């Protein structure tokens, strides 16, 4: 996020795009509510009536998969009506004229049939965003989980650049990161193209710096993105490029990744799968080795939250059982392979890391303790450098000439559109009580009591009526790739023809249906759009029994004693 989370409530206008804070980040959503109480204007772009939509001034309930058409049309209105910040464009940006050539045709009338939003509403939204200062954009997976995702992120940045909404507090654009430490895993270079601190593996001077620090030659080839792994196991012809070993650390691809049938086949065919985790999970069923790690609460270190904030996490209780902290397991394997890693504690690792990363160099444990956290960039070790609440101060961007680049592209639809066989669309979403693959929240008694298997499919009441479905009834939902059983949830929050499911359920596993169609730059799958069909199950008694049996079977596989004897 270019801004800090506390700044959200002081924006003059919030463009909340494909971001459902009430379910994914309740504490950020609270800032949005507080902003509203202070008079903040809210434009909500979401195909569902989210909580943010309910308190918005304008809700653009667009057709799923039409994001870029809407963003380009808003840019068109801002340009056509002269609502641009011309001085900012001139002093701090490049590529504006080329960008205008792209958005020229995106009149609101052109976008209306694509987005299903009346042209006048697009005009009103664009005017509100451009004329209310400071204006902030928050976005979420409703932007990123499409095959056209990076283009939309750039499109949103274009809006902020055109209107001079960068360089001060409560403005800019903010991807509100999902997991507690997804920002941190990126910061640390758990990415195929960058070392820690966003330093590219293909730049010779940077590679030499790391080679010198680590004392070994390093590869100059960009690595394999995680979403290419099934293909690289199953279909790669070159033996040297085929993935033969997969060391999975703190993830559950057999639940969280798209097209689960393909993921299972890949894990099954992979010669050697190592899983390092805290709880048994679906991926564990395919692991050749399982390494048990300490959990949050039993170990310590630093996380990075969504707004670049480094914060300490601390040990609460002593681990029980034969567990080791993740960093120690990795260090021991490395040492056994002939590359010794000897660290006494997390601070030693942290100190090695910050000295290799100019943007993090000043974020010492001492400062994290004293200031209760530091937002990067923090370049200087002196106690005066307390970090950076918002980026691009004064319109200075992180490019060689400090100028931001406009980047315009044309809209294209998602890959798999509704058709005769699969007439509805499916998008994956979140719910507030459960988290990710739910091995944590599903094992918390209070949270588990909120929702349980097999989850729900959200559908418009008209569709339910057409299919003769009642609330709570078990239904079968299918795509070209697979199917699952879940419960029908009629809700006016969603538009006819569209369905929504959360991805943490084992039985109502929507990733059996999703499609591994990737954005060409981010390699993120199109979780937010595939074609599906909902079928009524006539024999509900059988279906209820079947779901219960499936649930018991999986729990037994996961090592739970259900009274029928636990499996190993």
């Amino acid at each position, binding site marked *: 996020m270019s801004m800090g*989370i506390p700044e959200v409530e002081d924006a003059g206008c919030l463009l909340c795009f494909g971001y459902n804070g009430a379910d994914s980040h*309740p*504490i*950020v959503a609270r800032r949005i509510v507080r902003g509203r109480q202070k008079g903040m204007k809210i434009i909500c772009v979401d195909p569902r009536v989210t909580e943010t939509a309910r308190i918005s001034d304008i809700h653009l309930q667009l057709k799923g998969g039409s994001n870029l058409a809407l963003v380009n049309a808003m840019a068109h209105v801002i340009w056509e009506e002269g609502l641009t910040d011309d001085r900012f464009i001139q002093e701090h940006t490049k590529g504006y004229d080329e960008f205008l050539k792209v958005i020229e045709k995106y009149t609101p009338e052109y976008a209306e049939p694509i987005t299903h939003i009346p042209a006048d509403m697009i005009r009103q939204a664009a005017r509100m965003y451009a004329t209310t200062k400071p204006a902030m954009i928050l976005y979420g997976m409703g932007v990123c989980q499409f095959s056209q995702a990076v283009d939309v992120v750039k499109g949103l940045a274009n809006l902020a650049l055109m209107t001079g909404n960068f360089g001060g507090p409560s403005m800019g654009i903010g991807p509100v990161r*999902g997991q*507690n430490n997804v920002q*941190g*895993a*990126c910061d*640390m*270079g*758990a990415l195929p193209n960058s*070392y820690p601190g966003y330093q590219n593996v293909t730049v010779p001077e940077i590679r030499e710096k790391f080679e010198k620090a680590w004392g070994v030659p390093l*590869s100059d080839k960009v*690595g394999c*993105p995680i*979403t290419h792994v099934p293909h690289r196991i199953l279909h790669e012809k070159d*033996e*040297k490029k085929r993935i*033969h070993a997969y060391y999975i*650390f*703190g*993830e559950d691809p057999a639940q969280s990744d798209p097209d689960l049938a393909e993921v299972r086949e890949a894990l099954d065919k992979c*010669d050697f799968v190592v899983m390092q*985790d805290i*709880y048994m999970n679906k991926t564990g069923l*395919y692991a*050749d*080795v*399982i390494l048990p790690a300490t959990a*949050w609460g*039993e*170990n*310590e270190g*630093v*996380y990075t939250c*969504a707004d670049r*904030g*480094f*914060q300490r*996490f601390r040990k*609460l209780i002593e681990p029980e*059982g034969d567990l080791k902290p*993740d*960093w120690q397991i*990795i260090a021991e*394997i490395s040492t056994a*392979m002939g*590359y010794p*890693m000897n660290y006494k504690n997390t601070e030693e*690792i*942290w100190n090695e890391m910050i000295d290799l990363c100019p943007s993090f160099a000043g974020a010492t444990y001492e400062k994290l303790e004293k200031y*209760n956290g530091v937002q990067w960039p923090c370049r200087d070790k002196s106690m005066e450098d307390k970090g950076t609440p918002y980026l691009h101060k004064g319109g200075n961007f992180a490019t060689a000439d400090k100028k931001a680049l406009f980047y315009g592209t044309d809209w294209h639809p998602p890959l798999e559109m509704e058709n005769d066989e699969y007439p509805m669309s499916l998008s994956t979403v979140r719910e507030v009580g459960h*988290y990710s693959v739910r*091995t*944590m929240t599903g*094992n*918390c008694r209070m*949270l588990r009591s909120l929702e349980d298997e097999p989850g729900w499919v959200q559908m418009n009441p008209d569709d339910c009526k057409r299919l003769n479905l009642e609330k709570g009834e078990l239904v079968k939902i299918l795509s070209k790739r697979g199917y699952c059983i879940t419960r029908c949830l009629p809700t006016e929050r969603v538009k006819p023809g569209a369905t929504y499911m959360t991805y943490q359920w084992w039985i109502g596993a929507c990733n059996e249906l999703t499609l591994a169609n990737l954005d060409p730059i981010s*390699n993120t799958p199109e979780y937010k759009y595939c074609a599906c069909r909902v079928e009524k199950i006539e024999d509900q008694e059988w279906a209820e029994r079947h779901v219960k049996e499936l649930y018991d079977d999986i729990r037994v596989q996961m090592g739970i004693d259900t009274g029928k004897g636990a499996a190993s």
Partner: protein
Amino acid sequence: MALKQVQTTCPYCGAGCQIMFTVDADANKIVEAVPAPGRTNDGTLCLKGHYGWDYLNDPQILTKRLRKPMIRKGGKRSPLEEVSWEEAISYVAKKLSEIKEKYGPDSIMGTGSARGAGNEANYLMQKFMRATIGTNNVDHCARI
């Protein structure tokens, strides 16, 4: 009962809320979680912050907590057998070394973790893949 208070960062979403825990050190159990005045949460928490730590008690609801290293000695689909850490570490090291030797470093993929493990463990994981294995095949769930 020796009660102690420890402040930490919530393990769920990216909001980075600060929580103050009361811990019974003798029983090695968490007693209570209350919001702390963190920069982002400003003395508030959501339901996961309040109640999301019970999994540390291993209540045997959904899945079993992993407590010992395990290996499928008879290959895929054979039962998992508990082993010592020494055996598990040397087995993983041997298998990865063999695969690296036979097919080259780019035949091995590793992931980071965006969840509980923290930045230091992620730093070591990517260092392990890059320096020990010799590949940039490391990624995590940011893109999924």
